[in-house]
């Protein structure tokens, strides 16, 4: 179980090191005098209509929901996949039924055109 320790160490280091990189920006104390550099970039237009906080149709949000379902299902398959030899035909039958449901869901999603853009 010592690998938990190593994992802990790398997680801490991996977060700390980028922060150290961040400090490098203190090397340059110059600050731009002009105000324009602080503007958010929109191709040089200083009078944009609405800003990025307002409504934006994320067309792929359905994908995100579908993903949650499918990724969880895929996660269920990993323990089975590793033990497929010991579980033998029983496991296969069970998992294929599960996958059948999954595929049926996928076909249903195709038919509802949830995956159609543009």
């Amino acid at each position, binding site marked *: 179980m*010592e*690998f*938990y*320790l*190593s*994992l802990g*160490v*790398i*997680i801490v*280091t*991996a*977060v700390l*090191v*980028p922060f150290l*990189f*961040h400090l*490098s*920006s203190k*090397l*340059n104390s*110059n*600050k*731009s005098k002009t105000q324009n*550099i*602080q*503007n*958010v*970039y*929109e191709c040089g237009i200083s009078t*944009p209509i609405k*800003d*990025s*906080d307002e409504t*934006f149709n*994320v*067309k*792929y949000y359905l*994908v*995100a929901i579908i*993903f949650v379902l*499918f*990724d969880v299902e*895929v*996660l269920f*398959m*990993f323990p089975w*996949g*590793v033990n*497929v*030899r010991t579980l033998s*035909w029983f496991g*296969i039958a069970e998992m*294929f039924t599960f*996958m059948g449901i999954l*595929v049926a869901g*996928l076909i249903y*999603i*195709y038919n509802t055109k949830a*995956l159609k853009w*543009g």
Partner: protein
Amino acid sequence: MDAYLIETVIKIVVILLLFSALAGFGTYFERKVLAFMQRRLGPMNVGPYGVLQIAADGIKLFTKEDLIPQGVVPAIFKIAPVITVATAFMAAAAIPFMPEFTAFGYTVKPIIADINVGILYVIGVMGVGLYGPLLGGMASANKFALISTARAAAVFISYEVVTGLSLLAPLMMVGSLSLIDINNFQAGGFTHWMIWSQPIAFVLFLIAAFAETGRTPFHLIANDHELIDGFGTEYSGMRWGLFFIGEYANMFFISWVIALVFLGGFGDGSVLGALALFLKVSFFFFFFLWTRAAWPDVRPDQLMMLCWKILMPIAVVNIVITGIVMMF
């Protein structure tokens, strides 16, 4: 215990430094490889054959003005690039970079943590890396960044499913999630490589790897010609550089995973095997650059279509076939 801790810390430091530097060298290789494919020379002026270009770029990134534009959410804006790099390095923990070797009478395992769910850990942590572009783009108060974020979310999560499904079939054959076990499974030599028994899974995983690292032909998240620099538009200096390091580190790690899972890894663990592993990894890194030189980018909706309508069904069928064949 103390010795173990010291060993771990040394390994971590070596890996972090090595891969930070490799990310720099990665940019140099990319420029050179692309240049030669495009009938030009690439960087030539800074140092011999332009090698010191990396140093010049580094100095520039390190000393640029730290700019936080108006309207951004400063805390999230600052933390996003850290997430990208941190998760990329965390993923390194479960990857065996070399076979075991003995130095000064001390056996070194070149893996930080030999977790028994290694591959799952690598995929999982890389998945968390999505939060980098996601938060960075959303905090940027920039419309291009916002669109890029929407693309990032959709592409990364869709291909997560394909990655999982395509890896499942080889894992069924191995019966373990540890990358060392997967490597040892193929130790018999060239003919035992996973690529011969799971060619479909190999192709699927390779395609998914391109999507996960956001490389051409799936270079959509920071597509300069449409979205300026996508989620990185408002970033400058080292903050932007961190995204860059993360991207290149990811490219290396995913190349390592492909080589370990499908191309026999370091084989029996001999010196020759270790050398072969480096060659395989280098080849895949080169392959990323090669593709960039050869192909145009797809459109986001085409990429999603490819994932959900082509790759996923194929991956499922591949698992079914693998399962049935294994029973006989």
